[in-house]
Structures are given as structure tokens and as C-alpha cells.
């Protein structure tokens, strides 16, 4: 079944199973492997991408349901220079194993687009769909506060 996706500003047309998840299409058909498969049950958030700027779990999102909406993956963020969020994450020590990191970058990019100065509680609430097993979250929160000018 033909599928046309608007990914990171490029139009891509391919043949995809009607039941294919967005994650499978991104990783297996388009070679966009920065989006990670952690659980395939919409729990861990490692597969988070943005559909019209809103974070979704691509592992449980049907590829054909994207339609004409704009799709942004980690490959579409900080393509030339790392974004201020990404730079703040590096500086704050917000990255350890890094497997969850693309998902966190996507969720937090959406958060900062919607609310450029979130407080700590707002940041933490926005992250309930993203699991990080390494960091205990505090340095990730620090990175966002660095961008938003908020206080701990």
C-alpha cells in the first residue's frame, strides 16, 4: 500500500504494509535509526517523534495514520548545529547510555516550542511518557531549566 510521508521537510513515498507502525517504517524502510525501539507498547518513549509538533509513540502509531501532517524525527533536530536544548543536555550531563535520549529530545523540543519557560514541575510532568533508566532525570531537568531560564 503506497504511503507518502513528509519527514523532516522531505516528501518520501514508499510501499508499506497497511498495519506497519510508524517506527518500523522510519527504521526499516527510511533508515532513520535515530528513533529507538524500546518496548513496542507505548510505555518507554524511546520511539518518540513529533507529528505536527506533538510527541507521539511511533511504535504504536500506524504509519498510514500520519497522513499529510509534518513528521519530525531526531534526524530533523539540530541537523547542522545542535539546538540550544541539545547543547544544554550535553553541558548538564543529561546523557548517559543515550538510548532514550532521542525520545527525550523530541518530547522536550515540543515542550519548549509550546512553553519556552516551563518550571520544574511542568518539565517533570511533560516527561511521564519517557523513561530514562540511567540518569534519575535530574540532569535532564537541569538542561531544560538552563534553556528556559527557570529555577531548580
Amino acid at each position: 500500500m503506497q504511503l507518502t510521508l513528509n519527514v523532516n521537510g522531505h516528501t518520501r513515498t514508499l510501499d508499506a504494509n497497511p498495519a506497519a507502525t510508524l517506527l518500523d517504517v522510519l527504521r526499516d524502510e527510511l533508515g532513520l535509526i535515530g528513533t529507538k525501539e524500546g518496548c513496542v507498547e507505548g510505555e518507554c518513549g524511546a520511539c518518540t517523534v513529533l507529528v505536527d509538533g506533538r510527541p507521539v509513540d511511533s511504535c504504536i502509531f500506524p504509519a498510514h495514520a500520519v497522513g499529510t501532517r509534518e513528521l519530525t524525527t531526531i534526524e530533523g533536530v539540530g541537523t547542522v548545529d545542535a539546538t540550544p536544548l541539545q547543547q544544554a543536555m550535553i553541558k548538564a550531563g543529561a546523557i548517559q547510555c543515550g538510548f532514550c535520549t532521542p525520545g527525550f529530545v523530541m518530547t522536550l523540543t515540543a515542550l519548549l516550542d509550546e512553553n519556552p519557560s516551563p518550571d520544574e514541575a511542568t518539565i517533570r510532568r511533560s516527561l511521564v511518557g519517557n523513561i530514562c533508566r540511567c540518569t534519575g532525570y535530574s540532569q535532564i531537568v537541569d538542561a531544560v531549566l538552563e534553556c528556559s531560564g527557570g529555577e531548580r
Partner: protein
Amino acid sequence: MTAIGAAAPRSDADTKVRGTATYGVDVSLPGMIHGAIMRSPVARGRIRRIDTSKAESMPGVWAVITAADAPSHRTGLKIRDERMFATDLISFEGEPIAAVAAESRELARRAVAAIEVDIDEAQPVVDMDFALTDDSPLVHPEWDSYETVGDDFPRGGNVCAEMSSDPEGVAEVFAIADHIIEDEYRSQRQYQAYLEPKGAVAIYEGGRYTVHIAHQYPFRVRDRLAEVLGISSSDVRIVGHHIGGGFGAKLDVSLEPYAALLARATGRPVKIVYERSEDLITCQSREDAIFRVRSAIASDGRILGREIDVLINSGAAGTDGPYLASIAFILAGAPYRVGPTRVRCRSVYTNTAPTGAYRGVSGTHVIFALERHTDHIAQTLDVDRREFRLKNLITDGHTLLNGQVLPDAGIFAQAFDAVEEKAPWAERAREPYTGVGIAATVWLTNPQPGSVILKLNEDGRLGVITGATENGSGAVAMGVTQIAAEELRISPDQVVVTMPDTDTSPYDAGSQGSRTTHVVGRAVGKAASELRQKIYEIAATMLEAAVEDLELVDGGVAVKGSPGSKLTLSKIATQATAQGESLTATGAHATPQPRFDPTCASGLLFPTFPTPTYHVHLAEVRVDPVTGNVEVLRYVVAQEVGTVVNPLGIEGQVQGGVAQGLGYALWENLTIGEDGRYQQRNLESYRLPLATDVPRVETIILEHPDEGGPYGAKGVAEPPIVPVAAAIANAVSDAVGAPIDTIPITPQAVLEALSRSGR
């Protein structure tokens, strides 16, 4: 300029934050097909029939293999009790029965589902106490025929391994005790829950296997895969990739032999990646444990002596259990003075999934039990819980039960003081339903060997070739990188550390027990002194100066006192290459075993805690009397680290380790039904800590440089998880006014405790 102590960004940060880092599960090769493993759905039984014909006839299925196609010998880390495939007796849910290779992952899984297996189910052995009775069936009826790796150790029947120590004087101190205090503590299994599921891509070519994985210990996979397949270790090449977390679960061979045999059977590269539920079932979680303790106490507050009996659930395979059985014994001798102490720890076989290594191996449940018991003793004596600890705290030169001397144990007192300064115990507000708890432990830096090759590149950057792995902790991307930079007086971004490849990397014992920064850092130091000498020799000719008159300056070599004479490292390396000299050097290190008393115990396979570090944690909680939920109001850690190599890295290990400890104390729970199967099957039912659950930990770092280096750094990453359940359980018990002696502390347990105490 100094790289030691700098909050430098980790070397892999940019690639990880952009999503360009390739992990084990991202590896894809031309012609690659996909594998899947068919596993027993029952915990105990006998296979009557396996029929793979339907699966084999499916279009796109390349191979189906079973025990008939695989080596039948048993292998293992310490006791050889595992086989690749079950043949007749099934001993745990998830035991492999067959494996399939097919054109796609989806098809491989459909083919697995098409394999027909008839199993005569039997009642599994689930309960550890029952497993030790004469009525229990044997999990391994042929246990007596199993070989051990190295010398045999006490074991028999359903006891996979037994560590015991029975010093003189225990009966005597119980006879004169003013109080005898007895407790039983229970703790659950914990899933490592790394975000990257286990995966492997295997190739069979020219009689050798190449396996691409993301693994904490590539050299062990090389050796264990060779052992499983019955081949020589040089017939295996392990290529490492970025690791999406491991926490101990990626230290042994797991799916690699199946990918390897399927690759040989098909002549194609074969990739296997676990689904989350398969990963959870086969993870070799932290073991569940029952800890029984009896203490003889004098009314003046001394602990006269003790009896400890521990059962740890090994599941249906020994794995790390024989080693882990020693941990309770070592920890029982610190941080408080105890008299003669009898310790027995048995690793017990049951018909449940095998358990294994998880950060803070066994220490998490041992310290939970010992520190809960410490609170119980203080409360029985009606003395302040912190005062009781300080009164009995060990000091410099204390001897552990194994005979190991801790020359610097007085650091404990400094750590208690540091916590007190930040969060004074006496001034704590005692609002209703709030409580405070404190817990302490000693921990080790794993001593096993590591090695490096240093190579000065022609552009003046330093290559570090090593089998050491970056599991996410920063031990390579910060620790080894910054130590190597300091050795040549260059900036950390001028250091390039290779990914492990067992064909070309020198040996390394893996990312375990916080060993990498310390052990590999020392190997770097040794190699660097040789490399500096070679650099000086080349530079001496170029500068027409004597070697002993030269020194390293920022990015180059100069005559001492004459910075204008500086030659860049790039010029020196280019000249060396041109004249046919190699600016490479090797270094290797293993920490010597501290002196101990080998007669102190039997079955002591993990005899000492080398390069010890000291830890005190304090937790403040509030319980909700309506819902039973526990809120962590404040968490303070004082941790001794030797020397800070990178403060960001240490902060991250403390924040992350405590978060995992909070999960263990409060939410995470792998429970086992009477059918021997896990009752949690995914990340929906297995409850991990979220950003809204965990507080920002207040971290106090204490520096006491290790004489042996590197720059005084000791292990950091493993121990922050160890005392957390103890501190939390002590705080919750304080808040509810009744003892909480089982973890995780569920809302129901909180409500029951409140009704017991009448609060």
C-alpha cells in the same frame, strides 16, 4: 590545564544527543536475515514431542534448529548447569527449545509460533524454603554430575552453592546477651530494565564467527560463546557497539549462541533482537532473597554477636549465584562493630528464570536487612537510631569478618558528619506521617584486569585502543578519556577511544563493579609512561636536547624552562612515523587481592572488597494515610570516591543509582506465581521510576585519593543504589510507626502498617 576534575562533556555526547550513535540493535548487514527463539511456556515439565515441520515449510523460513542441531554439553559461569536447548526436562519458563531464522523478524516470530511442542507439565519448585526440604523435587536431578569452573565448592541437591562461616564464640555471646533480637527480611527480584533490549548480529565466515553486540563484557562473550559452541576463543570475534544500558544484565553470553548457530546453518548474517517481554523474562534479574538474622545485644548498646542465614534465589541456573553467596558475609562486618558472627548464605535452585548480576549485586537486599535490623536494635534499647550507629561505627584499621583490614574506615564518620551538616537529624520536623531513615555501607571497586594500547596519531591526537566498554556511566567517555588526556597534557577532546573488538583490542574484564575508571585508568597510566619516554626520545633528537631536560607542555614537548622551544605532538608523531618508529605503548593492570583469612569461611568465592569506598544515605518521606503512597521528600547521599575525575559524571551516577534504588524500594517488583512464571510481562506492569517520582538527590562528595591512582580515583558508579532501600524502609517504618520488613513497600503494606501502629 588539568583534565582531572573537569566537568568536560562526555566524548560520545554529541553523537548520542543527535541520535547518530549506533547501538547493537541498529546493526544491519547486507543479506541479513532474522532469528527468533522458541521458549518453554511452562516452568517445569518433560518434553514429549517437538514438531518443527510446519515452521520449516513456511516460505521465507531459512532454518529451524533444536537440541538435535546444537552442542549438548552444559556450560556456566561457575557451575556448568546450562544447555543451549532443552531436550527432555524443562526447568524454567523461557528455557530455549528451538530457534528459527527467516526473511523477516515478523516471519521468524510466526515460525516460532508454528512449532508444535507437547510438554507433560509438572508442579514447579518455586518457594526457596520448600526447595530445601526433603519433599521437594530436584530442579537439577543430575546436579552431582555437573562440573564447576575451578575448584568445587559446597553444594548439593537444590543448594547450588553454600557459603558458610562459623567462628568461635557465637554461642557464648548469645548466652550472656541482655537482648536477643531476631528478624526476617524479604526482598524481591528487580529487572535491570535497560532501554535497549538485548540483540546480536552473527556472521559465520571462513570457519569463524563474528558477532556484533552491545555488551558490557565482550571478552567474556568471546570466551563463553566459544565454550558453548565447543570451539577455540580465537574462532570468535566480538565487535562492540554503543550500549543502551546494562546494569549487570549484559555481562554474560545470552542470545549470541543462537544467532551464531543460525548464521552457520543459513550462511547468512542473522540478527536476533528480543521483544521487551522476552527480554524481561530472560534478563537474569536481581535475585529475590530471604534474610534471617539474630543478634546478641548488651544493654550498654554493643552488638555482641550475630547469626545470619540468607537464601538467595538462583532460579534454574547457577549463573553468578556462587559468587553472590559471599556478599552477605563481607557486608556483615561493616559499618558497625559486631562480635563473632556466624553467616550462612545459600544460593538455591528453583524452577524459575535464572537470576544474575544487577548493579549493587546482593548488597541492596543485604544492607536493607542489616540496616532495618540496626533500627530495630536501637529501638529495642530505646536509643536514638543515629546515635546507636555512631556509637558502634567502625574506624580506621577495622577488620572485616573475612580478615580484610579497612585502613581508612574512619571515612564513615566523616560521611555521617557530612550528612548531619546538610540535613540535621535532631532538628527534623516531625509532622504526622513523615519519617526519616539513615543507612550506610562499604562497597568495592572490582579488581579484574584491564589493558590498553596507546597510540599517538600523526595529528597529535591520542588513540586509546581497549576492550573496555562504555555502558553509559561515563567511565570510558569521561574517566578513561580524561585520565589519558592528563597523562599527555592534552585536552580530553584530543583523545579517541576505540570501540571494543576482541580481534584487535587488548583484554578487558568489562564494565562491572565500577572498575573501568580505576583499573583501566591505571593501565593508561602505565602505558603513558612508556609512551612519554618514546615521545621524548624522538623530540630529543629534533630539539638537540637531552631526554631528561624535556617536559610535556600544552599539546607538545619543550625543553624545561624554555617554553618557546615547544614542538607540537603532531610534529613529533609525524617525524616518528617518517623515520619508522612507532609511538605506541601498552599497559595493563589488575588490582591485587587484599590480604584476607582464607580459613574464615567455606565456599567464599568472592573473598574481598578491593579498593573500598564508603557511603551514607539519608531519606525523608511522607506516607499518605489514605492511599498508602510514599513520597520521597528529601534524599541525601555522602559518597567517598577517591578523587573526582568528572563531577558531572559522578553526579549522574548518584542521581541515577538512587533512582534505581527508589524503584527497588517502592515500586519495581518481579513476582512469581505458583506456576513459576513472572507475573509482570512488560513495562506497563513492571513499574519503573518516572521523572515525577524521583526527587533531586542532594549529593556530598568526599575525596580520599587512592594511593595506587589513577590520580586517586576509586569506583563510583555501582554503589549509589546499595543503601537506598534500607534508608527508605527505615524512613517509612519511622513514618508509619511499625516495622516494614519486606520490599518493595507497597501502598497496601503502608496501610497495613498504619493500622498495626494505630496511627
